[in-house]
Each structure stands twice: as C-alpha cells, then as structure tokens.
C-alpha cells in the first residue's frame, strides 16, 4: 500500500505557526515557556515552534529535549530501545510553563511516561501538550492542548511524519 500524503510542507509550517500563537495566547505572554520535544521528531518540532515564538515575542521561550525511554511501561515487551539525550534549557523547569511537543499523539502512553520524567526533573507551574497530529485511539485519559491536525485513523493504519532536519527532503505527513 502506498502512503497517502495528508499534510504538505506548507500545511505543516502553517500548523506550527498557529500552535505557536495558541501557546502564547494561552500563556498570556508570561515569557517563561519551556518547550520540551520528545525524541526524535518532537525535538525538531519544539525547536521550530520555539523559533516562531521568539520571532513573535523575543525571549519568550526556550526549548529542550525530553527522553522518556526509561519511563515507558512497555520496556519488557518491546525490543530494547536506545534512549536519546535529554537536554533541559538553563534555568530548569521549576515554576515555568512546560509544553510537551510530540509528532503523533496516539495511545497517550508516551505522554504518560513524559509526565513521569518531568516529575524527576522539577516542578513546572503547568504542563501542556502540543502534537502535530492527533490520530485518536487514546488508552489513557490524556488529551492535547494544541493540535496541528486531527487525523481520524484506523488502528491498522500507520502515520509517517517526515521532517527535513531528521529525514531530509521535504516535510510531510502521510498515512498508509
């Protein structure tokens, strides 16, 4: 089966810009935003959104990476995963507004792991969730605050997110 494109480069850029505006609006310009991307593609998205945020309001946001491998609930089911580095921006996350960023929101288990990981790093004022694609099928009571595109899908389908920084070529979201 060939993958059917759902979002093109321009759509993705537009969605991320909108998410940036929504983040600013909901935080009322408090200027203490920390965007933590979940590896691999969440980190790229966090960096892009942060760049947009700082264009709109300079100095309002910092970004980092949050690896959740050690906190997953499926470590003894799936093949051994290799963690990616975690990097927390200077100043930490205590008392700040953390926005978790991931490419695809699916079962919600990754986000559950991320919330645990955050717990071990500090105590943010609030934690929000941004996802480029929400494909449904949640297995936990978790929802995104900022969504690029809601993409109803069947459990048999797969969503492919390609981002220039990681995969080369043009940005694309496809379903197969």
């Amino acid at each position, binding site marked *: 089966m060939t993958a059917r494109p759902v979002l093109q480069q321009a759509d993705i850029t537009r969605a991320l810009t909108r998410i940036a505006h929504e983040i600013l609006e909901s935080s009322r310009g408090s200027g203490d935003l920390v965007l933590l991307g979940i590896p691999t593609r969440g980190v790229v998205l966090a960096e892009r959104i942060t760049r947009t945020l700082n264009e709109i309001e300079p100095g309002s946001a910092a970004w980092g990476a949050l690896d959740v491998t050690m906190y997953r609930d499926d470590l*003894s089911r799936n*093949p051994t995963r290799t963690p990616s*580095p*975690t990097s927390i921006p200077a100043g930490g996350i205590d008392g700040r507004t953390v926005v978790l960023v991931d490419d695809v929101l699916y079962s919600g288990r990754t986000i559950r792991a991320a919330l645990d990981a955050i717990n071990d790093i500090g105590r943010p004022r609030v934690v929000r969730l941004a996802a480029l694609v929400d494909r449904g099928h949640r297995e936990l009571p978790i929802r995104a605050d900022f969504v690029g595109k809601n993409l109803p899908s069947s459990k048999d389908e797969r969503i492919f997110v390609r981002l220039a920084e990681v995969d080369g070529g043009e940005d694309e979201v496809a379903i197969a």
Partner: protein
Amino acid sequence: MKHLLSTRDLSRDQAIAILDLAEDMAAAQTREVKKLPALRGKTVVNLFFEDSTRTKISFEAAAKRLSADVISFAAKGSSVSKGESLKDTAQTLAAIGADGVVIRHGSSGAPRTLATSGWIDAGIVNAGDGTHEHPTQGLLDAYTMRKRIHGDASRGRALDGVRVAIVGDILHSRVARSNVWLLETLGAEVTLVAPGTLLPVGIDTWPVTTLFDLDEAIAARPDVLMMLRIQSERMNAAFFPNAREYSRQWGLDDERLARLPEGSLVMHPGPMNRGLEISSAAADSARSTVIEQVANGVSIRMAVLFMLLTGGTE
C-alpha cells in the same frame, strides 16, 4: 543481547551503543532525582564468589538507580562455604525469581557455564571470572578514554588511532584481556608492557604489540598508560625477583610520570598498590582517571543492566 560474558562477543556497533547509553545514564546521575524507573519490579542478584569492593558496590548502585531490587550475595558466610555447587546456587536463584545475575567467580568460564547450562533463565553479567575477562571494566575504561579524549562530542565515536599501553601483570589480568578485545574492536592500538614471565602463552596471537621495557613504551608517546595491579593473591611462583625490582622496572614512578607526553592519561582499574606499580604522585595527578573510572563504572553498569534486562522477545 541476553548476557554479557566477554568483550569479545561485542560488535563495534554494540560497544558504541553501550558507551552512548552510558552517557545518558551519566546525565541522569547529575540530576537531583538520580533514580530511573526502567527496571522496576526486576530482581538483580550480585553473586560474588571472590572479594570485591568497587565492582560490587558499583553494580549495586547501578541496579538500584534503575529501580531494580538488589540481592547481594557473598560466598563467605553462605552455603557455598558448606560446599554447595554452582548448579545448586543457580537453581536457588532461579527459584527466587532473579531476572539478572551479576557473577564474579575465581574460575575462568563460570559465568558462561551459568549462561549456557539452562540452570537459570536470567541475564548473566560477568563481573570478573578468574583470569579470563571483566567486560564491564573494559567498557568503563573505554568510556573513560573516550570521554577524556573527545569530551562532550564523544557520542557515537570509537577510539580509532588511540594508542594505549597496558603495563604490568598481563598473565593474570582479566582487565587486560577485556580491554585488549574491546580496544581492538574500537580501533585503538594496544601495546602490552610486562616482564616476560607475566605475559601469557600465545600472546603472539593477540592483536597487540608487546614490549618488555616501560621506558621504551613511554618513549613511544602513548595516549593512555594503563597500570595494572600486581595481584599478590595470584603470585604463586617467582614471576619477578622482588617488589622493589618490579617497581623500579615496571612501576610508574614520579620520574616516568614527568616523561609522559602532555595530555596523556594514567589509568588504573584499582585497587592500587601505591608505591609498587604506581606512585602516589601519579595516582593523584590530574592525568589520573582513577576516580573517574569508578564514577563511570556506575553509568556503564546501568547501561549494561538496562540492555540485558529490558526488551522482550523480538
């Protein structure tokens, strides 16, 4: 990867993956909350038939930082001193439900026996067996070198072209063996320096150069000088005339330390015999990585336990 028995079993990619994973573990150790939940509900047994301080506490710390339950077992004061066999001990551990067994044993090959016998279905980590291997020591030494040489840019890199001289009791040293195989895999050039009596038979088949003279090795400007401990407990024959003579010929004294090239590292797996194979000044100098090696040992062992004890059947 189910067991870690020898660094010989590791491919270059696997070795680099373990070193990279150890970097993540080290990063977690700088946080206020050092514990990670990855091995929650798993039981790790430390089975030590030989004395050890740093390896044992290092494995214990590593397992606890990953939230595993740790049972430490020393042969002294156990049923082993009543004559219990390795098989019975293993079956006892299997009955208790051990997921991982870290074993140190005086007999070369004991960990492999445990891994292949079918007595116990647990991940086996060799923590030193006789004069055979001590793979986590080899890995932590490689990690320490990589970190000192490449600094923050060390991820994903090997040790290509790094020149390492390992000095001392090669014959009895499992640390030397684990290092030789691993360093070769990672692309380093290894020179062994020892009196002829302390080199094993068949050394010509190892991927190393051998020298009998430490001064010659220092003149060749090595990047790393690794001093091995003189293992008096294994010295059951006259390998060298006396300790003073050994120290004069193959010990790293202050004068030799001064002749080492700028930026070279002095390593020692510990425990050190200060004044015998290494002088106090050398052990405490800025080039010495002795304390770093211990700290890195915890990260490496966390990485190894994580690799062995997570991941279901593929």
